[in-house]
């Protein structure tokens, strides 16, 4: 297998280097079919922070993803104000690392390795990144099929953009394109452009039951928890087994349906004798939550049988059903975007969201000051969050002195995020992601800096995130794109965290990475 992969890659690179010029956009059948194809290689090297991590995690090359993507737009009908297009985005990948890395290989059983991690057959349909029919007639637009919907304008944190879950198994936000991280869902989407003042657009989405969980790293892999060495039962760790169980969430059922409405329009108030153009969005969304919570009775039964199976070497005899549940919640969101061209000369983006009825497990600390806890029950909590972003290009003379073509302009973006759990029992709540155990609120600041050199052949980007609980991360990347066909990105992702409880989001406990991505457009 190793030989096939290595020989295949060498052949592909040689072919790409000496092959024909990139055509970029293929127009076929009298331009009715437009086709774009690309391939990329993505490598991640992981560096241990300390000796213990070196034992737990696989070091050195931990991701080597081969990927081929094709996007096709077929015009089925076009006449006057009617246009029907069929759009397909195929995404095929092969994660080769388990073929090279023993620790990763042994962290999963063969079925998991192939179906859930190495190839896009997790749900048997992942090869279709998106696939839908787009019907446009006058002010109406309908999109039917597997698609992604973005309802939000924030970048590093998602405030109101909650429709599609993310696939974080082997992609790096900021390195892979944002829309490549999203898990598209089967939806019906309708958009109506009214003739009301303010160019008001009404948009509705209905998902008849395609519920997908956010896909996080699999145990033992680059993005997952540490593998368990010498684990019994086919090398399957407890966490990997739990992951398998979590995946049994029903895929298509009307009980899992979700939907929402968004209204967007423009306001043009006159402030201090100047007109300002505001793009304003209001949205409502009703869906099953992601992440999920634990059903206790089922969990006890499941763990009992798991442990028994583990003792007997029969891990496959797990109970049917699930002890993880996704609960329904509601959300209202507001988004405002404008530019202040006179005083601060910046583009301002504000977003706020209120979530009703988010479900959480309640917990009990095993000992004061301890980081471990036991789960005791469930509760519903409301949550409010907002983000305020200021983006401005700035002139920086030192950059211009480096490269005459660079124009000395750097694009700087600063964002403040805050969120509050609206409960008096915060210490009993097991919170996901960004929040630490005892914190009712969180505050995070992000900064993004981007500039370019050699007529934009070379782009430098850096992102920082700082959470007031003293955790965060920063990324540096350099992209070289000398031609239409080739693009090479190298960079690093460094995390830091004050406490292990924060490390899940900060990736600060163990994860320092260096990455490289080579992309070729056919």
């Amino acid at each position, binding site marked *: 297998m190793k030989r096939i992969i290595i020989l295949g890659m060498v052949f592909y690179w040689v072919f790409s280097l000496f092959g024909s010029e990139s055509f970029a956009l293929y127009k076929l059948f009298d331009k009715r079919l437009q086709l774009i194809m690309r391939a990329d290689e993505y490598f991640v090297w992981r560096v241990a922070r300390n000796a213990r991590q070196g034992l737990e995690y696989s070091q050195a090359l931990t991701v080597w993803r081969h990927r081929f993507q094709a996007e096709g737009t077929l015009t089925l009908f076009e006449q006057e104000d009617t246009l029907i297009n069929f759009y397909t985005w195929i995404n095929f990948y092969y994660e080769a690392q388990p073929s090279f890395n023993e620790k990763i290989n042994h962290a999963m059983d063969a079925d998991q390795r192939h179906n859930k991690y190495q190839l896009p057959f997790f749900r048997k349909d992942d090869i279709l990144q998106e696939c839908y029919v787009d019907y*446009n007639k006058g002010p109406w637009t309908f999109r039917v099929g597997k698609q992604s919907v973005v309802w939000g304008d924030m970048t590093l944190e998602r405030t109101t953009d909650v429709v599609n879950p993310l696939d974080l198994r082997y992609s790096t936000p900021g390195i892979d394109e944002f829309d490549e991280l999203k898990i598209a869902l089967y939806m019906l989407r309708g958009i109506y452009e009214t003739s009301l003042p303010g160019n008001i657009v009404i948009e509705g989405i209905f998902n008849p039951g395609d519920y997908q969980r956010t896909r996080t790293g699999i145990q033992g892999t680059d993005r997952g928890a540490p593998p368990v060495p010498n684990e019994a039962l086919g090398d399957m760790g407890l966490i990997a087994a739990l992951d398998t169980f979590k995946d049994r969430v029903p895929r298509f059922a009307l009980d899992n349906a979700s939907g929402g409405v968004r209204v967007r329009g423009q306001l043009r108030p006159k402030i201090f004798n100047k007109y300002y153009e505001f793009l304003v969005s209001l949205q409502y969304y009703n869906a099953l939550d992601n992440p999920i919570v634990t059903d206790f009775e089922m969990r006890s039964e499941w763990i009992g049988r798991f442990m028994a199976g583990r003792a007997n070497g029969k891990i496959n005899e797990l109970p049917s059903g699930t002890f993880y549940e996704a609960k329904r919640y509601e959300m209202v969101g507001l988004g405002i975007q404008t530019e202040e061209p006179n005083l601060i000369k910046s583009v301002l983006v504000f977003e706020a969201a209120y979530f009703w009825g988010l479900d959480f497990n309640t917990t009990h600390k095993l000992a004061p000051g301890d980081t471990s806890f036991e789960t005791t029950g469930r509760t519903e909590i409301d949550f409010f969050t907002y983000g305020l972003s200021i983006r401005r290009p700035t002139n920086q003379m030192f950059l211009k002195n480096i490269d005459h073509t660079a124009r000395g302009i750097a694009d700087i973006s600063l964002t403040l995020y805050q969120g509050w759990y609206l409960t008096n029992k915060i210490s009993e709540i097991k919170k996901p992601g960004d929040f630490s155990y005892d914190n009712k609120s969180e505050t995070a600041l992000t900064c993004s800096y981007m500039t370019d050199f050699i*007529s934009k052949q070379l782009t430098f980007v850096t992102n920082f995130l700082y959470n007031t609980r003293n955790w965060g991360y920063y990324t540096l990347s350099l992209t070289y794109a*000398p031609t239409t066909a080739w693009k090479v990105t190298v960079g690093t992702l460094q995390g830091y965290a004050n406490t292990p409880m924060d490390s899940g989001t900060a990736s600060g406990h163990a994860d320092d990475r260096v990455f490289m991505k080579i992309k070729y457009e056919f």
Partner: protein
Amino acid sequence: MYMRNQLLEVKRFLRTILLGVLPLLFLATLSLGEEMRIKVPSYEGAELAKVREWEKTWVGKKIDKTNVDQVKDLLLEPHVRIIKDPMYMNAKEYWFVIVPYQEAPYSKGQMEMTQKYAPAKFNEDRLVDYGKIAGFPFPEPKSGIEVAYNYDAQTRGDARWWYSIGSVVDPKTGFTRAAEMYRMAMYWTGRCFTPPYPVLPNNPKGFRRTYFQRMKVPEDLNGMGNLDVKYTDANTEDERWTYMPNFRRITRTSQTQRGDNLGSGERINDDIDGGWGDKVERNTYKLLGRRELLVGRHSDPKQLTWPGKNSCVWNGIQRERVKTFEVEVTYKKKGYTYSKQIWYVDPEIWIINSKMCWDEDGRLWRVHDEQWYPNKTVTGEVAFTESASMHWDVFGRNGDLTKTDETKDVGKVFPASKFSINALQKESY
């Protein structure tokens, strides 16, 4: 006696007429002879005859390094230099063809509107209000700003759709980055080609011009859309909204980016729309005089050839003699991208044929060569629209090329929804 007195009175009256009124009439007749002309061709009379005589020698001739010295006075210096040394732009050769000078027609609307409104009066802010007038406000410009306002008044058919292909080329390495996009533009005020003119009804926000662009190539920008809105009110800032397909988001683009490079090419955001896309009032203008140049304004894009996919010139441009207005342009605020520009403005079409730009250190930096081509509008008028262009960095040795692959719907009144923010997301995948 009485009769004699009466005769004397008549004589006095007649003398008064002869000495007073007739000279006034004479002066009045003279002043009628100086009536403003609606359109002044580049050449006429003896000058035109002289040009025709010159054309007998040169029309149809290919100008390359072997004979460029004979017409070098009719070219900007960087063109002469690159024709002699085409490898500077990574081309084996750089040549063009001379075609006869053809007077460019005005549309019926341009004639009518210019007749009706010219010469325009500057108001307190020295602004020309396109919400109230149309046509060329200064058919016989006496100053740089009057030339600039005439350029600003050219609506190029009022509206059009066109598909552009192009490349950004690094001649030093031969690396090429391709770009393709379709574009739509429509003027809402100052219209002169398709009724209703001069203004479109239902324009509550006071749009002057709206522009929509959708990228097709390169693939990572495929689907990216830009919407530019220019307002008739000179005190209202222009707007740009951008749809990024890889984020699926619409974002506002800061006005402070106007001085930044447009994509990876050799233009800044202000250079779009035929040479200058921002408000006329941003600059000061100094009319340097007239400069005869060989420019492409009847240059058929289908006749252009690309000497190599790593080169940064078009060969086969059809150039004709035109006596351009040479205007020195300086941005009013300090710290701007260009310390100085010189525009060469066509005296009949009022487009920028060429321009040269100096950097902040006073070095000649960029040379833009814009070619134009007459297209039929939906009402049968003739409108000059983009044919091709070359934008060179003659200091850092870079460049980009564009060519119009298709132009249609010139003069069409597009639905307003084509220029809405929602249109950015529509038909984007």
